[in-house]
């Protein structure tokens, strides 16, 4: 996966927990453009650790002068967002990957309905910028708990078809009302916590919508768990995956060559064959099929873990 060193040129607090970062090329070079919904992977050298987190781009996809992301500090997380908030300052340079889109707009849509919960607003912002430029028909529904925490309010323009729902003020997002009577040719894009994505899917199913009109992106960080051991078939070596480490990170630490891209269980790049499995793979990805999950013949090292006696993978 290709990447380049970019300089942090702006840091702005959008809310007490969310900061906006702007990156530019140190030599002023134009950066590769992207499409709304794309993300980049930011590399963070944190002592002996090399952290890699994926963040959606929030800047204008057609503007190559810089990339912008919004990072929410997750104090209970694995440390990447804390690093961004505490250790990264203006003028620092970080390695940023070329943008990749696993959450793109359906260009055929007669109408786009974008639904965001909390920090899930980030990919929606870039999608909105693309739709505004293409002069496509859309509406946005953004849900947040507290006005003071709703970083999205700072990023969304005031337009009649952009709606914010602050639940603490009694304005809960009503999915049934949003989806009811939408015309054929509508596509819905949801980003936020897994619960919101499930709720949209259930509401759409109850109304009788075809599933192909629903698009979503869950921001999946590798979940922590118990430490486990994995044996590598090609070298016979065994690696230990720590409680707050992913198998992918453990493989990288052991200098095992492995391709990756989203690091969130969605793109399929790091898919790995399982040679033998005595125990249970905890599949956390959105890539493998249900059959592949239950047969335990493949694993996505970026997010999935293992419990049991022995796991041998084809690496």
């Amino acid at each position, binding site marked *: 996966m290709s990447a380049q060193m970019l300089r942090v040129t702006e840091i702005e607090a959008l809310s007490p927990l969310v900061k906006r970062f702007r990156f530019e090329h140190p030599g002023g070079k134009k950066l590769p453009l992207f499409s709304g919904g794309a993300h980049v992977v930011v590399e963070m050298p944190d002592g002996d650790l090399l952290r890699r987190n994926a963040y959606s781009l929030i800047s204008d996809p057609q503007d190559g002068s810089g990339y912008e992301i919004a990072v929410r500090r997750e104090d209970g997380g694995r440390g990447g967002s804390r690093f961004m908030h505490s250790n990264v300052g203006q003028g620092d340079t970080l390695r940023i990957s070329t943008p990749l889109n696993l959450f793109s707009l359906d260009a*055929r*849509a*007669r109408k786009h309905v974008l639904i965001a919960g909390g920090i899930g607003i980030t990919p929606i912002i870039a999608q909105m910028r693309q739709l505004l430029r293409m002069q496509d028909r859309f509406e946005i529904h953004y849900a947040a708990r507290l006005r003071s925490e709703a970083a999205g309010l700072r990023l969304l323009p005031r337009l009649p078809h952009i709606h914010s729902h602050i639940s603490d003020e009694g304005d809960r997002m009503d999915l049934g009302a949003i*989806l*009811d*009577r*939408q*015309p*054929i*040719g*509508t596509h819905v894009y949801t980003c936020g916590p897994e619960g919101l994505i499930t709720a949209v899917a259930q509401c759409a199913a109850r*109304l*009788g*919508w*075809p*599933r*192909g*009109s629903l698009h979503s992106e869950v921001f999946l960080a590798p979940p922590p768990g118990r430490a486990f051991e994995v044996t590598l078939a090609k070298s016979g070596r065994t690696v230990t995956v720590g409680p707050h480490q992913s198998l992918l990170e453990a493989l990288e630490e052991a200098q095992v060559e492995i391709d990756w891209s989203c690091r969130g269980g969605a793109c399929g790049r790091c898919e790995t064959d399982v040679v033998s499995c005595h125990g249970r793979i905890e599949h956390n990805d959105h890539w493998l099929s249900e059959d592949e999950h239950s047969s335990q013949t493949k694993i996505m090292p970026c997010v999935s873990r293992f419990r049991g006696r022995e796991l041998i993978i084809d690496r």
Partner: protein
Amino acid sequence: MPATKFTPSIISRPIYGGLTPHGTVPALMLASGPGGEALLDLIAADPAVLPHATVIYIPEGSDLGPRLEAQGPASYVEAASYASILPRFRKLLAEAPMNTRLYLAGTEGLIGQATAEALAAGMLLEAIEAEHRGSLARRMQCVHCKGITEDVTTDPFTCSHCGLSLFVRDHYSRRYAAFQGVCVDAETPGEVPPKQEIKA
């Protein structure tokens, strides 16, 4: 006349899975000739599909119309032909909400043309149910002159526009709602193989 079972073919050849009811959502039902029986079967399987259903029936000499109307759909209309009902069908599609299901039954020509209209209006393929009943005639596009020949029952056949002898391929375009017809004697003009009846 039961639903047609087709022999397996290449991936672009459409498969008609039969009409599966989707409950009380808004429904557009369009059938011709023996396709009316497929609608009756659908309604019998789940009467809940009726209250929000608009039924369009093209009898083509069949007498199923009164029975369909007697089922009591939200609205019922009988049409002389697909061409005559097309403007109304387009308006219904343009006004349809996202949860609309389209149920089609009849010949491949009817299913294909109505599917192409619905897709052009923004409907997704998965919202369309189709069941083949009746004639095995195919709607063919001449790849050379682009003209469509309706109701083709033999292979090869003569293009009704340019007159070339064409063989029938299973390659199918949803956009044209037609199979591809290719000149059968292109390399050896005049050497046209004998005609055979098209089979399922």
